[in-house]
């Protein structure tokens, strides 16, 4: 009997194509959720700052709602409840695989609430005089926002938005609850199949660490450059 666990990493090389495929799914979910999240988050932030109270209430309610619910719960809504609802309303044939679409929608709507707060703070950090100047030049509200305020706000926000993207990439592992084979799901399945869960989980952790650490160092470097400029 061995007192110490004996590692056996031999299931990793053969599983690499499957793991890569999982990584592509993770990255696809991340990228689409970042893009939709930033677009919807920008709209929410502008609504929240707008002087039309119903819009601002709606945005505040949306952001607070999504920020109070765990992501796992949101994903379960999107995997277990919403597909049924859509089936009944739109008459999709039963058993249509909506998991990938659900995952993207769930992440995008959830992350938009977090992006909205980052973007709101970014917009508020632009001096008021900029809007007055835009108005004085005869720009409409939309033009002033689009051409003057948002470009400056986004420049300051880039590091925070990227950091949020790293968090989102880590959070994509939670699609595990839908049994969708993203990178983590793939690693878990391989480990479970070969009885090598220990090695596969450590391997998955190492891969996530390398990617996230490298990317966060890049963000930090960029942030320093931004400060100097």
């Amino acid at each position, binding site marked *: 009997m061995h007192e110490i666990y004996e590692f056996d990493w031999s299931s990793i090389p053969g599983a690499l194509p499957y793991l890569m495929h999982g990584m592509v799914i993770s990255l696809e979910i991340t990228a689409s959720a970042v893009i939709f999240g930033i677009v919807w988050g920008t709209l929410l932030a502008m609504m929240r700052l707008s002087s039309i109270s119903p819009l601002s209430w709606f945005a505040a309610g949306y952001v607070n709602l999504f920020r109070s619910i765990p992501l796992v719960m949101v994903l379960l809504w999107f995997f277990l*409840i919403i597909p049924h609802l859509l089936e009944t309303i739109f008459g999709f044939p039963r058993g249509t695989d909506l998991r990938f679409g659900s995952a993207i929608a769930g992440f995008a709507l959830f992350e938009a609430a977090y992006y909205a707060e980052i973007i709101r703070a970014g917009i508020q950090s632009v001096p008021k005089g900029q809007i007055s100047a835009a108005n004085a030049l005869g720009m409409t509200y939309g033009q002033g926002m689009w051409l003057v305020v948002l470009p400056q706000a986004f420049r300051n926000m880039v590091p925070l938005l990227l950091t949020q993207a790293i968090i989102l990439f880590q959070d994509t*592992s939670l699609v595990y609850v839908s049994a969708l084979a993203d990178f983590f799901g793939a690693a878990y399945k391989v480990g479970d199949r070969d009885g090598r869960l220990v090695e596969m989980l450590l391997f998955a952790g190492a891969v996530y660490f390398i990617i996230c650490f490298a990317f966060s160092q890049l963000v930090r470097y960029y942030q320093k450059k931004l400060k100097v400029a």
Partner: protein
Amino acid sequence: MGYHWNWGVFLQPSATGSDTYLGWMISGVEMTVALSLSAWVIALLLGAVVGVLRTVPSNVLSGFARAYVELFRNIPLLVQLFIWYFVLPELLPVSLGNAYKQSNPVVQQFLSAMLCLALFTSARVAEQVRSGINSLPRGQKNAALAIGFTLPQTYRYVMLPMAFRLIVPPLTSEFLNILKNSAVCSTIGLLELTAQGRQLLDYTAQPYESFIAVTLAYLLLNTVVMFGMRWVEARMRVPGYIGSK
């Protein structure tokens, strides 16, 4: 569209007989709160130590603290949880590992979940502590050292009491995070609120009621914590700083 709403389902006796479905919800809330609170205490203690280490004038200690923070920040919570739950017992010496595996499964789940949440959050607390210490005017440290305090005394009597009061708002929002992150622990079978929600869905066949009830329970927990936070923040505010009234 044919969906039969039935909120009364929560008062029906549950499938296991000894309880109502509402009782399941309540035990889920209790588990979520117990898990979050116990993990929070450990996270605060560990985070304070690691955060202080990040600011001390010693490359070895601050390097160790930085590695600690980066390690726990750059691995997804779910992966960390699975490593605590599935990997750690295997890596322990066999006799110890076996004893652990033979213990009550609920205890195993709870311990893994608590350790996981505690260490994950401690890295984030450490960053808050560090930024709190770094935000103090440098003169405070220099003045303390100049009047003959040792470095540990400077931390204990001058810097930490100030720094902790300054970082109360971000720390309390970390508690909200731990509450939400605890939902991840449903994946290892711990019967906290989210897991109870899934059970409710399976047993009652009333998906909307089950999920709406669990979502409302999270909103309620959040609201309670937020009001608690406001009270603590008002008491801890440092006069003369922005945000104090």
